[in-house]
């Protein structure tokens, strides 16, 4: 092979894919979608390799277990066939085909079957618990975002006032306490020591026997059961929002356009919302998107502590039961929901910030 000097390469002649896809890639919408697809693909691949390739991986463990429980009545190939069905992977195919069929069945939302109750599909198990986590996490996170933005804006406008001190110091104090410790403290003091809350009646996602539906009684019941998890999801990131919004507002207040707006005699209220607030809140939207993944992950321990039937509790239960198809399914579906939330935030961001709407303007 002869080396072709780079300089002799024809420039601008012929079809250069980068000229088309490069421009396409720079469009924020395409960028966000591509990022979402990439994230899901990375998680899928990672999960596949963890399940399939690691020494002592779950598939091998299951085959061994099947042979042992059958007491010699099962050959290795029979056990392998059963395991194939359970994991929804054809174990006799070459590895790359296993990988492709794994991706294929995933696209059909076929995640295999649970080890414990072989009739139930993983998808149905997860779809039964995922809404509860999304509901409680979403409510808590949005409430804390709104409250944090409001308090942060107020703290920045009344810098060094008592309110500022309480909001900034208190917020950072509560935020640096791990969420499981916060939950334990609530249980310890509000529940056990002072008997303020009746925990046993708040367990689960809703009172059993109540007819699910859009009735006032059922909706009130849902919020009653989700109150404690929502409180934790509200408190944990609150300090972060307050501090970020406070510093973003402080720097926005020094911008020239704010001075210009003042000089033009605009009302304080209008400057606060349309000029300062709007620009200060922009970077926080991206942070909100990133925090979704963190809060959903942290929800596992919260749901465990409050016995709330969400996806995190289901994940931990499957870990103790070594129900690997369910573990795999939870990881994938949770990632997909987090990625969709991020995608929504990315799109919202480009809506809120007109500078982003144009190609090439995506700021980190």
């Amino acid at each position, binding site marked *: 092979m002869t080396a072709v000097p780079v300089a002799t390469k024809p420039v601008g002649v012929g079809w250069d894919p980068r000229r088309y896809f490069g421009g396409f890639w720079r469009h924020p919408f395409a960028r966000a979608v591509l990022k979402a697809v990439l994230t899901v693909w990375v998680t899928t691949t990672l999960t596949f390799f*963890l399940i399939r390739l690691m020494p002592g991986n779950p598939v091998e463990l299951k085959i061994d277990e099947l042979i042992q429980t059958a007491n010699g009545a099962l050959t290795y190939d029979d056990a392998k066939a059963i395991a194939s069905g359970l994991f929804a992977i054809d174990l006799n195919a070459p590895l790359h085909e296993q990988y492709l069929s794994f991706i294929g069945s995933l696209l059909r939302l076929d995640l295999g079957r649970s080890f414990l109750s072989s009739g139930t599909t993983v998808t149905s198990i997860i779809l039964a618990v995922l809404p509860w986590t999304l509901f409680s996490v979403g409510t808590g996170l949005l409430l804390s975002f709104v409250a944090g933005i409001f308090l942060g804006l107020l703290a920045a406008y009344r810098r060094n006032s008592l309110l500022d001190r309480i909001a900034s110091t208190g917020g950072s104090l509560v935020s640096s306490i791990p969420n499981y410790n916060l939950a334990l403290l609530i249980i310890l003091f509000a529940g*056990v020591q002072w008997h303020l809350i009746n925990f046993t009646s708040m367990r689960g996602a809703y009172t059993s026997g109540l007819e699910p539906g859009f009735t006032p009684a059922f909706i009130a019941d849902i919020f009653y059961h989700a109150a404690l998890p929502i409180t934790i999801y509200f408190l944990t990131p609150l300090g972060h929002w307050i501090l970020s919004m406070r510093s973003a507002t402080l720097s926005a207040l020094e911008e020239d356009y704010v001075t210009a707006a003042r000089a033009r005699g605009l009302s304080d209220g209008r400057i606060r919302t349309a000029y300062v607030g709007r620009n200060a809140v922009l970077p926080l939207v991206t942070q909100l998107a990133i925090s979704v993944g*963190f809060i959903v992950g942290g929800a596992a321990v919260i749901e465990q502590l409050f016995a709330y039937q969400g996806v995190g509790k289901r994940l931990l239960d499957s870990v103790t039961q070594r129900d690997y198809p369910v573990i795999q399914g939870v990881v994938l579906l949770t990632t997909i929901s987090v990625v969709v939330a991020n995608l929504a935030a990315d799109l919202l961001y480009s809506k809120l910030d007109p500078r982003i709407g144009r190609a090439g303007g995506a700021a980190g």
Partner: protein
Amino acid sequence: MSTAILARPTLGQRVAGPIVATFEFLRLLATRPIGLAGFVGIVFFIFLAFVAPLFVPLRNDPSLVDIYQAPSAAHPLGTDFQGRDVLNQIVYGGRDILTVAILAALVSTFIAISIGSVAATVGGRLDTAILAITDVTLTLPKLILLIAVAAILRPTSFVFLAVILGLLQWSSLLRQVRSQVLSLKERDYVEAARSLDLGLFHIVFREILPTMRSYIVIHFILAMTEAMYAQVFIIFLGLVPVSGSNWGIMLYFAQGQGALFYKDSIWYILSPILAVSLVQLSLVSFAGALEDIFNPRLRGA
């Protein structure tokens, strides 16, 4: 290459410089009560975890007559479900937690700084590729992934656990390092080093990174808090089959043995909660004060 324009500092100057800087730093820190409290807290917990076990004898023999005792002179923090002294467990339970937090922070900070600064300095497609990978990792629900990884790999050693934690949390720091380096690399002194053709290694590690020292220290501390959170999270959930005793294992047993719902055992479960939370608080408030000191633009704000 001899650059004898500046005289080499004498030994006295070389020793005096850092001492003066340390005093100046402590003077600035003393004006910030929250940051000072954080600093004292960190020193206290490092002493408690690494020095105190050398002087306090380990007492972990179960004593069934002393189960769940309230605090007393013999047991200042009461006893646990096997009648063991809680204070003794707190003293011995910090070393592993802090070591893993430091190791994990080292791993993630190292990845973020080396790859982030190279990406920003080299630029081009390498930068685009690294940024894409970082963005993808940034959105992953890492704790869910951590649970799955721990369930499948079952990390039995603390070093392995630290590496897993470090590998999961480098992405946000990498982004920040990259954008910092992007702005720093346009500075004159970096331009000068580039025109002297000093090489990528020299430019990144001798010209750019030293100016980011304080920034790196702050983020190292914050990375420690993240690693500690995730580590206690995973131990508390009982997903790491590690033996011995540490604050996370104490929490795990306290919850598993029903200490949560037993009135007299409140000190048993409260002690690890307080230990973990106080370390986190100290680290965060110290990092906040450092940011305030090292970034004079923010001073007085």
